[in-house]
C-alpha cells in the first residue's frame, strides 16, 4: 500500500472518529425529550389552571388528539430529511397529492363499478395514496442524490411542481369523496383516545425503530452528522438519501390520508401554512437543522405542545394571530436557549478577531517565558 493511501486512510479514520465523537456528544436524546415533556406539562398546566372548564373538557382534549396527528406526521417527515442535513419543503404538496389520488380513485371506481366495489377496494385505494407519496419522495430522492441538487432547492422546486400538477389535475377546485373507512377512523376512539392519535403513535414508533434500530437509520444519522465520515466508511450516500426522501414521502402520503379522515375532501391548496409550522415543530422537538440529530419522541411532543397552545389560546379567547406570535417566540426562544447552552458546554469558542488577536499575543508571551 502506498504512503499516500495510508495517509488518506488515516485522514479518513480521523474524520470518522470526529464524526462518531460528535455523534456521541450529541446524545442529548433524553435531554431534548425531557425538555419537551416539561414544556408540554407546563403549557398544559397553565391552560388547565387558567380556564379549566373549557380546556379540561374531554371534548377539547379529544380535539387536540384529532388535530395533532396530521401536523405531527408532516413534522416527522421533515425531521427525517433534516436528520441527513436536508429539508423537505414539498411535503405538504405530497400529502395533498396523496389525498387527491385517493379521493379521485374512489370517486372514479364508484362511478364506474358502484360504491360497494369502491368500498371493498378501500385498502387498495389507500395504499395507492401512500404509493403516490413514496413515488413523489423518490422524485426528490433522485434529484437530490443522483442529480446532486441541494435538498432545499430540490424540494422548493418540486413543491411548486407537485402543487402545480395537483392544481392542473383538480382544476383548482376542492374535490370530495373518500372510502368510508377513512372518516370512520377519523371518528373512532380507542379507550377514549382518538384513533388518529393512535395512528400517529404507531407511525412514530415505527419511525424511531427505523432510525435507532436499523442499519439504514444509523446510516441516515451518520450521513447528517458527518457526510465525509459516512463516505469513508463505505456508506452509499446515494442510497441513503434516496431511501430517506422515499420515507419522507411515505410519511407525507400517510398525512394525506389523515387529511381525508378528518374531512373527506381534497384540494391542492390544503394546509399551505403547514409547511412552516412543520419546520417549527421539528426544530422545537430537538431536531438539528444541520443534520445528525433528531428525536422522534421530541417531535411528537412538540406537535402536541403546539396543539395544546393552540386550543389553550382558543379556550382563553385569544386569536389565531396571537397563536402565531406564540409559535414564533417559542421557536426563536428555544433556538437562542440552545445556542447559549451549547456555547457554554463547548470549551474553545470560535476564533473571532478579538480572540485570535489574544491568542497571538499569548503565543508571544509563551515564547518569552523561560
Amino acid at each position, binding site marked *: 500500500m502506498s504512503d499516500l493511501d495510508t495517509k488518506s486512510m488515516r485522514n479518513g479514520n480521523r474524520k470518522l472518529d470526529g464524526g462518531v465523537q460528535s455523534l456521541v456528544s450529541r446524545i442529548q436524546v433524553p435531554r431534548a425529550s425531557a425538555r419537551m415533556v416539561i414544556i408540554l406539562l407546563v403549557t398544559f398546566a397553565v391552560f388547565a389552571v387558567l380556564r379549566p372548564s373549557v380546556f379540561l373538557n374531554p371534548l377539547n382534549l379529544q380535539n387536540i388528539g384529532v388535530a395533532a396527528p396530521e401536523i405531527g406526521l408532516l413534522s416527522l417527515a421533515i425531521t427525517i430529511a433534516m436528520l441527513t442535513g436536508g429539508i423537505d*419543503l414539498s411535503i405538504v404538496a405530497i400529502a395533498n397529492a396523496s389525498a387527491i389520488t385517493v379521493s379521485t380513485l374512489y370517486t372514479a371506481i364508484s362511478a364506474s363499478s358502484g360504491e360497494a366495489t369502491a368500498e371493498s377496494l378501500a385498502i387498495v385505494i389507500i395504499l395507492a395514496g401512500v404509493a403516490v407519496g413514496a413515488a413523489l419522495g423518490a422524485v426528490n430522492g433522485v*434529484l437530490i442524490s443522483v*442529480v*446532486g*441538487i*441541494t435538498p*432545499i*432547492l*430540490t424540494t*422548493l*422546486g*418540486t*413543491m*411548486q*411542481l*407537485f*402543487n*402545480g*400538477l395537483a*392544481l*392542473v389535475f383538480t*382544476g*383548482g377546485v376542492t374535490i370530495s369523496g373518500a372510502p368510508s373507512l377513512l372518516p370512520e377512523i377519523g371518528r373512532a376512539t380507542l379507550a377514549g383516545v382518538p384513533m388518529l392519535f393512535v395512528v400517529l403513535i404507531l407511525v412514530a414508533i415505527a419511525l424511531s425503530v427505523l432510525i435507532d434500530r436499523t442499519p439504514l437509520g444509523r446510516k441516515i444519522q451518520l450521513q447528517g452528522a458527518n457526510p465525509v465520515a459516512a463516505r469513508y466508511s463505505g456508506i452509499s450516500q446515494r442510497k441513503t438519501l434516496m431511501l430517506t426522501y422515499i420515507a419522507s414521502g411515505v410519511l407525507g402520503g400517510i398525512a394525506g390520508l389523515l387529511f381525508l379522515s378528518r374531512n373527506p375532501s381534497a384540494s391542492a391548496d390544503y394546509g*399551505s*401554512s403547514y409547511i*412552516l409550522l412543520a*419546520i*417549527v415543530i421539528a*426544530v422545537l422537538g430537538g431536531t438539528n*437543522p*444541520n443534520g445528525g440529530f433528531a428525536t422522534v419522541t421530541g417531535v411528537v411532543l412538540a406537535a402536541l405542545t403546539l396543539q395544546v397552545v393552540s386550543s389553550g389560546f382558543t379556550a382563553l379567547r385569544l*386569536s389565531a*394571530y*396571537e*397563536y*402565531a*406570535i*406564540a*409559535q*414564533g*417566540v*417559542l*421557536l*426563536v426562544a428555544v*433556538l*437562542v436557549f440552545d*445556542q*447559549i447552552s451549547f456555547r457554554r458546554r463547548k470549551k474553545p469558542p470560535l476564533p*473571532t*478577531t478579538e480572540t*485570535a488577536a489574544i491568542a497571538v499575543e499569548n503565543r508571544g508571551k509563551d515564547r518569552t517565558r523561560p
Partner: protein
Amino acid sequence: MELLRRLRGANNEGVLLAVIIVVVVAMALASPAFFTAGTFFALVRSSLVPLVFALGVLLVLISGGIDVSFPAIAIFAAYTTVAWSTEASFDPTIVGIFAIALVIGAALGALNGVVIARFRLPTLIVTLGTQGVFQGILLAYIGSTYIAASRMPQSVNDASGALLVDIPGAGFLHAMLIPVVLIVVGVWWMLRYTTFGRSIFAIGGDTEAARRVGIKVVRTQVLLYVLVGALAAIGGVISVILGRNANPQTLVGTELDIIAAVVLGGASIFGGRGSVVGTVLGVLLVQLINNNLVLLGIPSTWQRAAVGILLIAGVSVQAIATARARRHPKAMLEEELVKA
C-alpha cells in the same frame, strides 16, 4: 469561445436571457396578441413588487442566508403606515408614507439581524419564527381589516392613479416603475462598488475568511437585514399603491415563490454568488410565464407547475456544472482565470 463565455455571464444570466427570448418568440408565434403595448405594460406592472422583494432576497442569499420573513415585514410596514394615517386623518404625503414604512421595516429587519448575527442562528428558522411574530402582531394588535381605497390617504390614492404612459385602449405604464428602477440600480451599484456590498459577498463566500480579513461580520449582517427590511417595506407600500387597498392578510405566503425566482436568476443558496441582472431576468421570466402561458394554449392552471419545472431544470444545470467542476478542478480553474 471567449465571446460565448462572456455572453453566458458569471451566473448564467445569458442562458436565462436566451430562455426568455425563446419564450417570447414562442408566445409571439402562438398569438399575434402578444406583441402589444398592453402585454408589455402588464408584464412590467406585475413584476414591480416581486422585483423589489427579490432584490432583498438576493442580498440575503448572497450573504449565505435565507429570509422568509420579508413579506410579513412588507405588509406590516405598509399596513401600519396606511392604517395610522387613516385613523389620524393625517396625510404625510407619499414621501412621508414611504419614509414611515421604511423606518418600520428597517426596525423589524434589525430585529432579524440582531437575533441572527448575535446568536449565529440558522437564518431560515429564525425568519420563520419572526414571520409568525410580525404577522401575528400585525393582525392581533394593529388591524386585521381590509382598508379600501375610499378610506386610504389621498396621497396614496393619487399615487395609485399616477401613470407614466397612458395609451387609451392599450394599457398604461405605472409611475411606480421609477422608484423600482432606482432601487434596482441602487442595489446593483451598492453590490458592485461599495465596501458594504463586497463585504456581503465575502461573508457569503466564507464567513471565517471574511472575519479574518477584518470584515465586521456581525455589524455587516445586522446592517444587511436592516436594509432588507427597508426594501421589503418599500415593496409593501408599492403593492398597496398598485392594489388600491391595504389588506393585512396578503403577501405572506408568497415568500417561497420569490426565492424561487431569485434562485432561477442564478443566485447560489450557499451564498457568495448572485447578481442583480440575473434576479431581474428571473423575476421577468416567472412573471412572463404567469401572465402569458395562456397565449401558448396552455391553461393557466399550469402556471405553478411550469415555474416548478423551470426551477428544477435551472438548479439541475447548476448542480451538474458544480459536479463537473469537482471532477475536473483544473480545467474549471483555468476557465475561471480566463474569465477574470
